[in-house]
């Protein structure tokens, strides 16, 4: 009798009954594999690892309950309908029954995903927790070429674009962005929404190429779900700040591909804040985009009408909303949020043409800054006098306003990560900026702290000390910002910066002295050691202690159980690897310094 013999008539038990392989599941559900895939993606069903793989090691196992869950899914029936419908269309076309085919195509069965979303994420926080992949994909799709005839529908891409902008507008408006990081892969953002840290990656604002090594069916299914999910999430978020969703945008700005700005304006208008700005924008007009505009004129007028209507309706509860906003500001803002909101406060940025506008338009307002750009629809021009920083990414800057600083875009991101206004010398035009460091790395845990991270740390410490004695002044400033003159602000910032510099210098000095002392001590320590070694009189004692230490390690290993011993060894290997890595980094650093000096 074989080992796993099951007599006939006896039911399967244990893992054999609980888990089902994918092929069997497909047969069980009577769907095609592609439909099964789609269903799994939409339903969020994933394979599970059984304790015992009854049918072999190289198979995918689904839990039987999951499969039954799929079997009861109305979507399954819908998929069958769609398939039948496709057949009908095909048949009609084959019979050259154009009329029937058209009629059928008009009545294609559709399905909605709202029920599925609620099923997968019963609470809003659940949805937020799983939002990372969703945002990354939506942002990626937003960057794909929206070309008719490609494998991805243009509508889908536009949808993704819209959703991503809506999301960014919300994050920017509520100042919930926490960290940013420009990597080779794109720009990472980390925001904190309802206590959940959400990290996403946006590709660089360059045309992505559709490659062939990707199964677009899978991607499209995922994006279908994610688009639906993000739509509902955005609705909820907009609802929470009392803004109507979906937003109706200023068509002109939209036409100028400045949707994000349009959205921001919409939100602020919706919540009854900024209202005087539109004049500034409407005044801008350019011949370059006139062709475009004539094309979309009819649409535009319609949209404007809708917007006007909306604003009329929104006027009524405006006061109430304003009140709500204020209370919001008062209580539930934690320290971090306040810090983020006030980071770029009173700073005015201007973006040159060559910098990644979308990213900076998102990031700077998220930290309380005011921003404009070189182009149509911008709120203020380059010549505006109160601009404090102009962000440029070119080898040299021709015309220079003395009242502002010309910095590279990395400065903004570094400031955000450090949560202080960094000195701009290193980031000035034409210079190679200091290394851009990831804010996601815990340097202490990693065991290696890059040089620039240490400088930033020192600057942070300095800034804190400086800020502490001055809260009275700042609060005064904050109390009535309207009364403050632009010059005043500039003075203050300059003064601040000067003080900061001083502080920094002193700090650096101090650090240097400390380091020197440390080094001296270290040197003396090591030299003394070497001397002792040379003398080799008392060497035995030392070595003895070393050996005993080693031995004690060995000996305690002897009395461990095998399981613990293996675990211990594995952990040791991991630690070793980490140490190796750090050693390599240090070595490279040393080499680089040597080559620089030598």
């Amino acid at each position: 009798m074989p080992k796993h013999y099951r007599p006939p008539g006896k039911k399967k038990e244990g893992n054999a009954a609980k888990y089902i392989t994918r092929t069997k599941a497909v047969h069980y559900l009577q769907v095609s594999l592609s439909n099964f895939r789609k269903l799994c993606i939409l339903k969020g069903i994933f394979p599970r690892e059984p304790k015992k793989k009854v049918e072999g090691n190289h198979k995918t196992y689904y839990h039987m309950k999951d499969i039954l869950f799929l079997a009861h899914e109305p979507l399954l029936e819908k998929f069958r309908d769609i398939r039948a419908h496709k057949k009908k269309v095909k048949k009609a076309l084959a019979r050259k029954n154009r009329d029937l085919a058209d009629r059928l195509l008009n009545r294609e069965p559709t399905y909605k995903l709202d029920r599925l979303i609620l099923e997968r994420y019963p609470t809003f926080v659940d949805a937020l927790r799983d939002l990372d992949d969703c945002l990354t994909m939506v942002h990626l799709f937003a960057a794909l070429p929206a070309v008719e005839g490609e494998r991805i529908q243009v509508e889908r891409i536009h949808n993704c674009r819209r959703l991503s902008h809506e999301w960014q507008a919300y994050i920017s408006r509520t100042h919930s962005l926490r960290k940013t990081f420009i990597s080779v892969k794109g720009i990472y953002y980390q925001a904190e929404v309802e206590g959940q840290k959400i990290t996403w990656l946006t590709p660089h604002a360059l045309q992505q190429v559709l490659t062939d090594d990707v199964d677009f069916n899978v991607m499209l299914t995922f994006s279908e779900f994610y688009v639906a999910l993000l739509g509902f999430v955005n609705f909820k978020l907009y609802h929470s700040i009392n803004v109507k969703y979906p937003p109706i945008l200023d068509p002109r700005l939209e036409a100028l591909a400045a949707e994000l700005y349009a959205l921001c304006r919409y939100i602020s208008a919706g919540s009854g804040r900024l209202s005087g700005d539109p004049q500034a924008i409407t005044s801008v007009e350019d011949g370059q985009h006139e062709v475009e505009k004539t094309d979309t004129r009819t649409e535009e007028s319609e949209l404007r009408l809708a917007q006007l209507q909306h604003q009329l309706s929104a006027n009524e509860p405006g006061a109430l909303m304003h009140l709500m906003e204020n209370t919001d500001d008062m209580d539930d803002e934690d320290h971090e949020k306040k810090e983020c909101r006030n980071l770029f406060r009173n700073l005015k940025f201007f973006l040159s043409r060559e910098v990644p506008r979308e990213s900076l338009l998102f990031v700077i307002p998220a930290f309380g800054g005011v921003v404009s750009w070189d182009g149509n629809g911008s709120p203020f021009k380059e010549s505006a006098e109160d601009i404090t920083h102009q962000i440029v990414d070119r080898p040299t800057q021709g015309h220079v306003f003395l009242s502002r600083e010309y910095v590279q875009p990395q400065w903004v991101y570094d400031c955000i990560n450090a949560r202080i206004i960094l000195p701009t010398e290193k980031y000035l035009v034409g210079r190679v900026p200091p290394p851009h460091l990831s804010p996601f790395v815990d340097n202490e845990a990693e065991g290696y702290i890059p040089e620039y991270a240490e400088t930033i740390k020192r600057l942070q410490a300095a800034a804190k000390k400086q800020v502490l004695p001055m809260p009275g002044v700042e609060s005064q400033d904050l109390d009535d910002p309207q009364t403050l003159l632009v010059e005043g602000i500039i003075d203050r910032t300059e003064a601040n910066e000067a003080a900061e510099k001083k502080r920094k210098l002193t700090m650096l000095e101090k650090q240097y002295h400390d380091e020197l002392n440390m080094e001296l001590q270290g040197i003396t320590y090591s030299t003394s050691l070497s001397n002792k070694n040379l003398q080799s009189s008392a060497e035995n004692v030392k070595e003895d202690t070393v050996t005993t230490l080693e031995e004690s390690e060995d000996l305690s290993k002897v009395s461990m159980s095998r399981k613990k011993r293996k675990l211990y060894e594995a952990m040791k290997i991991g630690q070793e690897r980490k140490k190796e890595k750090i050693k390599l980094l240090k070595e490279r650093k040393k080499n680089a310094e040597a080559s620089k000096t030598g």
Partner: protein
Amino acid sequence: MILKPRFSSYALTRAPSRRETCSGFTRTSMVAAAATAAMGKSRRSSKKSDRLEQEIAENPAANGDVEEASGRDEESQPSDAASLSEDESSQGSPVDSEEENGGVNGDEDHRSGEESDSSEEEVPSRNTIGDVPLEWYKDEEHIGYDVAGKKIKKQARKDRIESFLAGVDDAKNWRKIYDEYNDEEVELTKEEVKIISRMLKGKTPHAGVDPYAPYVDWFVWDDKGHPLSNAPEPKRRFVPSKWEQKKVVQYVRAIRKGLIKFDKPKEEPRVYLLWGDDSSAAENKRHGLSYIPAPKPKLAGHEESYNPSVEYIPTQEEINSYQLMYEEDRPKFIPRRFESLRSVPAYEKALKENFDRCLDLYLCPRTRKKRINIDPESLKPKLPSRKDLRPYPRTCYLEYRGHTGPVKTISIDISGQWMASGSSDGTVRVWEIETSRCLRVWNVGEAIKHISWNPLPELPVLAISAGHDVLILDTGLGNAEEQARIKELLHVEESKPEEDGGSTPVVSWVQDDKYDCIRLKHLKAVTTVEWHRKGDYFTTVVPSGDSRAILIHQLSKKHTQNPFKKLHGLPVSAVFHPTRSIFFISTKKNIRVYDLLKQKLVKKLETGVREISSIAIHPGGDNVIVGSKDGKMCWFDMDLSSKSYKTLKAHPKDITNVAFHRSYPLFASCSDDCTAYVFHGMVYSDLNQNPLIVPLEILRGHTSSDGRGVLDCKFHPRQPWLFTAGADSIIKLYCH
């Protein structure tokens, strides 16, 4: 007779539904058929016609066969005929006897009938015109031609008076019928008339027929999947449905009125507040299995920056060296440095990486795994400090040099003054421990396997196993009085073995003159010799000795016993219990514990190691350590279990020997990896407390030779000192 052949052919074609045809006859057709048949027959001999009638009457009733009834009149089988005749006889028909008489003829007829299977008549009709209307011959004189070519003349027509007169004269005239076709007058027999009259009444032609015979269903209905119906398609299938028409009209009107619209405007995906109030028992909405969230992708580190610090950028050599790595080990991402943000290109693998993530999300099996995030040091057991467990042997204090081959075995005198060592160079040496002076040397000539001092201090005698022999050697230590006693003890009378002579003795006690000692000659090589605590008995182990493997010898009586006849597995060593009369035998796999007084097996210890190499008993007697050839040492608490209390894997190579200290809580193991481990092994008198085992020290110093390391280790009987004998022919003493 026109109808006849047709009829029969019809009967043939419809063979399966014979019954139907029978019942399907209308009355008139039946009558006509019968009449014409009768007419045809009546022309023949009376006998034949009689028989025809019989068959018409009988056959359908008997087996429901119309065919035979109509066509093959002579064909009926003899048995049938017999049965028929019986029936007839009962009715008292006048033709019966004739029928019976003509049995033989009947048979003949039957045969001839079979030959002409067709429905052709034996008696052809007189008319030869064939099947044409008689009208065509109305004006002719003849009705066809006969065989000779002469015209067959019509008979002259009788006028009415003539015929009437003939009818008046003839009493049988009412029975005569004019056959127009053959142009002749036929006289019906009485029987035929009877049949006709019955038919006219609507009865069956023959009285003997039972129209209501019980129905015998000859068709096998079992396992027939379809009804045996040949019903034609009903009409309704070909007629357009009225209901449908009404419905169509309804729809048409509805469409005209605009109630039904074909092109609905497409519904936009609507968003609404999906998560209204989170607090409203969201947990209840959760169903299915527990959701395992996918692990989030690793966040970007410093090296992924577009402008990382220099130390993160690998040099060109390092990048080249990646090519030599296995594909799995190769770093997925090679950091690069861009001078400014504008020079950063689009990441070409963005789509691919996102796709991979998608695949991970829906294809990778998910499990919850416990990830322990602890300091590895916390895994180490908390052991008491080694300082508190002093004294124990730590450093090499003395070396005993002199042997030229690997020192196989050492033994310490109970007084702690002398040490004996045996080497594979064939010499036995006795050393003074404190000075490392070699006191005496005996050259035995064979490699020494095991050596052991007598535990009695007043009896300084050595037991040496060398080859097949065990020598009991007088060391010459001790005072004169003791020497005399030893001399006496070590004297064997030569005659003794000859007395036993008949059967081959297991061991022969022989006096050796060379060293003035006793030589115990075994049949095979002896590996171990161990003394009993009282110094009179000792045991030897001969691993290949089968049933004589373990022997117990008594020195005072020069007597040998073989109490352990049956051993399970090859014996490795045997030891006496330090206090009680218990005996331990270790086979390769397990340890067997015998009670010597009761002479039975007390316990069996299962080690679970591959091969036991050595065994040592704690001086208390309840704990045993076992060394194995896979480098494991097992501690057994005999009161606790027959399985090991703790298994220590310290040595990477074979353990050669293990030893307990007599008084200190120390034990040691030595191995072929040239080390000896010293452990603290505290046994508590409280039975609830498990023994405490702490590894104390690794003693190194020996060098390996020929793959062997330390071959033996023994503790000093009183001091916490350890002696180790190495394969490098050196004996070392480790002191505290």
